[in-house]
């Protein structure tokens, strides 16, 4: 092992009276790729930000020795001026969300050139040429033209490449990468990761990669450090840790891949499908440019030619990347889109949406939904009882309040939230619960009216892997017990693998492939499906 580049000893970070990171120590050698792994709230990002002292109102103690050019500097003790010299120059950082990390009012070329002017003291035109060179190096096509683009004009992957180009502008010795691929589509993640790997080898820089994605770690890192609740519980070479995790938490993380546990009987032929679609097409009006736009509206086709049938008690997985029309499909299935947008047929339990409140009321009971983000799917100003009990107010208004409360309790118990564990459960507000618990509440809210079809719109993608496994197991159990049909929308191939009986693949609003899960996931025919599966 070569000499360490960065040695962190006994790092402690506290906000107010709350210690978020305690006693963390690790080291990174020159040109080494270290992955810092943990779930949300484990303190990984705080650790990285603390190294550059980019945290507000935090008390940081410990040492972070940066060995470079024959001298050793303690990042945590350096005066602010000296540290500013190091930031961006010797140590650079890239963030999870490139859209918010780039200045929306400057072209990406200008932003990179600015770094070069500041840090390398290059003249204007020289900085600009270098910026284009850097962009080209990160694999952006037509770098000269793209340098004139504003961040919003680039795709997500290109933005992340531009940010990497900016971080690498000064050839840093150490790159801190905070979830650099999390905001990207699956097929892009691999590319960005390969790019980082190539540039890392080329420049001989060290990378501290912060991530929750174990696939990524396995592919990228030389060594892994696992964090749990602000402490480093285990570290070692990637291969060793993956082969034989010692700490219980690491073992739990490694075992968090969702398991398939389904009743896989073939559907009764001739049974009314829980959800069916024939020639379903959804188009949104969009303004046309120029004078034409005054008189006519253009059309953006979000979904077209979708044909499928979901029998009761089974799961139809819908995979696709962002913008492929998955969520539009969910809204169409739930009858939430106004009529002019939708053509073709959607039927729920054999009946069609009338798009009139009174006429649709019986169907609203049959089809229910659970959304992705448990933070926005529960009204923050309603109690758990009000949230879960709302469906009863609509579909069984004759129930007395006491009976309603009993049913709410039962529905919550069904999803694993018991009043014995949370005293006063019904009177609590959503902000008191963690993401996984909120997702359970959202599930109880949907189940209380006794639906036959659940539309699950990325139900676990905002959850930590270990929580995801629990929620998926709960969904599998409920399906077995109640014969629910699931329309499962996700970008996560692992989730589909564990949950779906049948799968359709969406790309740019069109169904490119469909069939049984084993067939589509085992022997994909369409090149896009193959690409998706290879990236996962």
């Amino acid at each position, binding site marked *: 092992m070569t000499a360490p580049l960065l040695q962190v000893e006994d790092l402690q970070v506290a906000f107010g009276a709350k210690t978020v990171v305690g006693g963390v120590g690790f080291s990174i050698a020159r040109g080494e790729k270290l992955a810092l792994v943990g779930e949300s709230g484990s303190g990984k990002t705080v650790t990285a930000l603390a190294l550059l002292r980019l945290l507000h109102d935090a008390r940081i103690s410990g040492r972070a020795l940066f060995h470079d050019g024959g001298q050793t500097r303690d990042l945590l003790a350096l005066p602010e001026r000296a540290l500013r010299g190091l930031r961006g120059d010797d140590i650079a950082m890239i963030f999870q969300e490139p859209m918010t990390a780039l200045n929306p009012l400057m072209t990406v070329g200008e932003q990179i050139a600015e770094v070069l002017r500041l840090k390398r003291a290059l003249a204007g035109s020289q900085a600009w040429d270098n910026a284009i060179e850097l962009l080209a190096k990160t694999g952006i096509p037509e770098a000269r033209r793209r340098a004139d683009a504003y961040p919003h004009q680039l795709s997500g992957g290109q933005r992340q490449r531009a940010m990497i180009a900016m971080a690498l502008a000064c050839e840093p010795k150490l790159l801190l990468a905070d979830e650099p691929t999390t905001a990207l589509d699956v097929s892009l993640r691999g590319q960005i990761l390969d790019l980082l790997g190539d540039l890392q080898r080329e420049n001989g820089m060290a990378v501290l990669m912060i991530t929750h994605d174990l696939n990524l770690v396995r592919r990228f890192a030389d060594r892994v450090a696992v964090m749990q609740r602000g402490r480093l519980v285990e570290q070692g070479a990637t291969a060793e840790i993956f082969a034989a995790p010692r700490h219980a938490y690491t073992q739990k993380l490694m075992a968090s891949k969702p398991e398939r546990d389904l009743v896989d009987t073939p559907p009764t032929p001739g049974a009314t499908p829980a959800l069916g679609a024939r020639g379903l097409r959804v188009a949104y009006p969009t303004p046309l440019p120029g004078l034409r736009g005054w008189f006519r509206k253009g059309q953006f086709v979000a979904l077209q030619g979708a044909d499928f049938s979901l029998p009761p008690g089974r799961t139809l997985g819908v995979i696709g990347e962002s913008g492929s029309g998955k969520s539009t499909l969910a809204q169409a299935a*739930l009858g939430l889109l106004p009529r002019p947008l939708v053509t073709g047929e959607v039927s729920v339990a054999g009946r069609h949406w009338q798009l009139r409140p009174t006429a649709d*009321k019986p169907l*609203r009971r049959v089809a229910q939904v659970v959304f992705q983000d448990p933070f926005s799917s529960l009204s923050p100003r309603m109690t758990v009882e009000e949230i879960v009990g709302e469906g009863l107010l609509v579909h069984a208004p004759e129930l007395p309040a006491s009976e309603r409360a009993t049913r709410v309790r039962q529905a919550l118990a069904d999803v694993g939230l018991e009043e014995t564990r949370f*005293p006063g459960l019904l009177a609590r*507000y959503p902000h008191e619960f*963690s993401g996984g618990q909120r997702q359970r509440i959202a599930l109880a809210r949907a189940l209380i009216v006794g639906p036959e079809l659940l539309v699950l719109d990325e139900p676990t993608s905002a959850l930590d892997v270990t929580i995801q496994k629990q929620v998926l197991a709960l969904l599998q159990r409920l399906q077995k017990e109640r014969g629910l049909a699931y329309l499962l929308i996700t970008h996560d191939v692992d989730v589909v693998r564990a949950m779906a009986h049948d799968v359709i693949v969406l790309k740019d609003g069109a169904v490119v492939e469909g069939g049984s899960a084993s067939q589509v996931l085992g022997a994909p025919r369409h090149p896009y499906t193959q690409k998706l599966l290879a990236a996962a």
Partner: protein
Amino acid sequence: MPGERPAPGATLAAPHGSAADVPAPSPTPARRAWRRFRRQRLGFWSLILFSVLVLLSLAVELISNDKPLLVRYQGQFYVPVLTSYPEKTFGGDFDTETDYLDPFIRAQLTQPGNWAIYPLNPYGAKTINYFAEAPNPSAPSRQNWLGTDDRGRDLLAQLIYGFRVSVLFALALTTVGVVLGVAAGAVQGYFGGKTDLAFQRFIEIWGAMPELYLLIIFSAILSPSIGLLLVLLSLFGWMGLSDYVRAEFLRNRQLDYVKGARAMGVPTRRIIWRHILPNSMTPVVTFLPFRMSAAVLALTSLDFLGLGVPPGTPSLGELLSQGKNNIDAWWISLSTFGVLVLTLLLLTFMGDALRDALDPRRADT
């Protein structure tokens, strides 16, 4: 994780924590906001002081009045505050209502066996002190603690009554403005599309109307009254707020909990009322004190210009204009100015504290 952010104020960290470390149910969002508000000392005490002042001004008849609270005259009790008695009752010559400031009546009431309890400041808003010792406007004296205005009315009484009129007017105007603004904003924001477009154009036209000239014209055509003023100012006062409510509704209506409620078949009225409205009230509540102070100022300025309340109504604006006309009578302008500054300052402090208390980015502690 995507969306890696701690739940604001999340207290249950572990999904399956043991029973021991589970805290008691926490208070409602409104209670949490109230707690944060209470921690803002300046704003909290401003609220207390303002409430006390408003309550006192509501009972101003007991504090500053030209009629005694209770009179004992020749073995009988009289309550002049509530009932009007002719002068003859107390041995005077006329059938008109008694002027209790008249030295003759005063003398009658101080005879042995008779007594009267006067309010702290023995003048009403319209009482003219015909028995003042100095010409009007007279400087602060033992009789008139803050002096009199140019018609001989007690300044302190005018200020207290004027404060009450201002505050009640501001409350009414704010209430009407908030109701109209929230309703308009909610309709625009929830339905969006063509409704929103039509409403927005209407607001642009409506907002372009010259409010002040309309006020001048209307007060020339119709006889000026507080009710008219309230209607006219309300017609224009709701627009600023409706924009904020509209923006909140536009944002909230596409959140998943609203979609979920629609998928549940919850009626539109209920979605607006139960789901979106409570989550869209932050700008409304934050602006309340500032709207009140704007209303106080509006009334004062209109009165100052002579376009406001009918003549004879106690009003801070009218006092300011008197102060301008009698620039050497410093007590008029100075004390009126003081009352105005205090009122506006208290409201602003409350507004600042409220804004901080409702700021979602602020932690509980």
